[in-house]
């Protein structure tokens, strides 16, 4: 399955969707809903090698590389983080390493969720974004090796 939309296009879509919400309550309700709908990660991935540990919540992240594109799957024990993961996967998954490495995830600021990536929040999410880019970087070097 090929992703026809570019990363900036998907980011813009999400920003548009969030502009419809008047209140923080609605935003969180939507994110929680995304979290509930996120496809559960196979138990085989819930191992230390896939763990991105935060201070409070834990994220498990796995990546795959096929036909020049990276796909991600992930889960968390906290539901709001799960909702945010769902958005990150929607934005980044099924793109080339170069596209993934070029993005600064500015949509997170634009939808008012910056604090979830802030150092103070110390959850797995910040570490997860870093790990997603690490995978992209690793696959990029792999590309040149092959």
């Amino acid at each position, binding site marked *: 399955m090929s992703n026809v939309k570019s990363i900036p296009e998907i980011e813009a879509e999400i920003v548009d969707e969030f502009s419809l919400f008047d209140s*923080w*309550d609605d935003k*969180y*309700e939507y994110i*929680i809903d995304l979290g509930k709908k996120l496809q559960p990660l196979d138990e085989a991935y819930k191992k230390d090698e896939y763990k991105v540990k935060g*201070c*409070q*919540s834990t994220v498990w992240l796995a990546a795959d590389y096929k036909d020049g594109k990276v796909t991600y799957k992930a889960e968390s*024990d*906290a*539901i*709001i*983080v799960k909702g945010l993961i769902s958005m990150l996967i929607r934005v980044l998954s099924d793109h080339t390493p170069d596209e993934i490495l070029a993005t600064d995830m500015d949509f997170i600021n634009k939808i008012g969720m910056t604090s979830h990536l802030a150092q103070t929040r110390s*959850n797995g999410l910040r570490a997860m974004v870093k790990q997603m880019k690490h995978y992209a970087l690793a696959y990029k070097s792999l590309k040149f090796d092959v």
Partner: protein
Amino acid sequence: MITAVETNTVLDIAAIRNDFPILNRKVKGHPLVYLDNAATSQKPQVVIDALVGYYTELNANVHRGIHTLAEEATAAFEATRDALQQFINARHREEIIYTKGTTEGINLVAYTWGRSNLNEGDEVIISGMEHHSNIVPWQIVCEERKAVLKVIPVTEAGELDMEAFYQLLSEKTKIVSIVHVSNALGTINPVKEIIDAAHQKGAVVLVDGAQSSLHLDIDVQELDCDFFALSAHKMLGPTGAGALYGKKQLLEAMPVFNGGGEMIKEVRFEKTTYNELPYKFEAGTPNIADFVAFKPAIEYINTLGKKNMRVHEDALLRYATGKIKEIDGIRIIGEAKQKASVLSFVIDGVHPQDVGILLDNKGIAVRTGHHCAEPLMNRFCIPGTIRASFAVYNTMEEIDQLAAGLKKAISLLK
């Protein structure tokens, strides 16, 4: 059904709230409900004024200068030591060592007393409800000195298993380092009993008073503890200032901690001699402004009276406990008979972090997570708790808001 209970305190809580300017601010469009007092307390205007006043009128380095500013700054800086001596009823003012806070106080004892008194096979007793800052320094020094760390288990109710403590205690025990009030559970530990028992075996006792200093009367002579560590920021004062009390004969015998200015008597390349107490432990230019501003915090507490504060805080805790228990799926962690100002709980099927985020969205500040007490969380087989912790300026209405916020959060998350 719990109905709003009146607190029997003689204090005018509304007037007290006016002394804390931060309580007027809004968070996410809601009036701030600050229930994270065990992490740090808010500061009254007198403390803020003293900080600004110090830099506006007094700033000079202490103890050395002969000019007027240096004299005035030194007098203000040292006046806090007298206030602290009275606050914990120490016999001598030089028994009060200025530190950065409780963590540094415990580290000071571990590194100086520990290194010079612990030997292979000696035992150090801590408990299963310690903050990491009363675990890690002892692990470091025990490893270095080949001493053995023993841990008093915690019961299901969140109390120390005192029977187990008496079994652990022996002639091999050299120090017992114990928390007075648990930051994660609120349990008030029987420190007097522990101190007396430890002394009978020839061991010394350090009391971690980070949480107790604001809520309980502290009399180090009556307790007969050998060390007592506290932090200003948990008692309405500034961050980065704290104190270690130690019995004079122990402090005098201890080697120095940090080397530098202030802590020396004479420096020669052949041999340096050290200053007297308390300065031998206070190397370098201290955190002058924050120590100056610590005094009005102590005076503020004294003026309100800890007993009066406790009446109100206990009423808040009782009311909150009742309100929280009414909510389906909530389990309180730590139901000790003696508790102070902390209510920790978990919700079935809900991650504490999600609750913390949604409460913050309503302007309610609580702490979620392991509260720097991971072994304690493992004891209860939970990743963490949601913790509401109270101070004198909190109100019954704020607890109603907490309960309403929790119900809303649970309905969204489940």
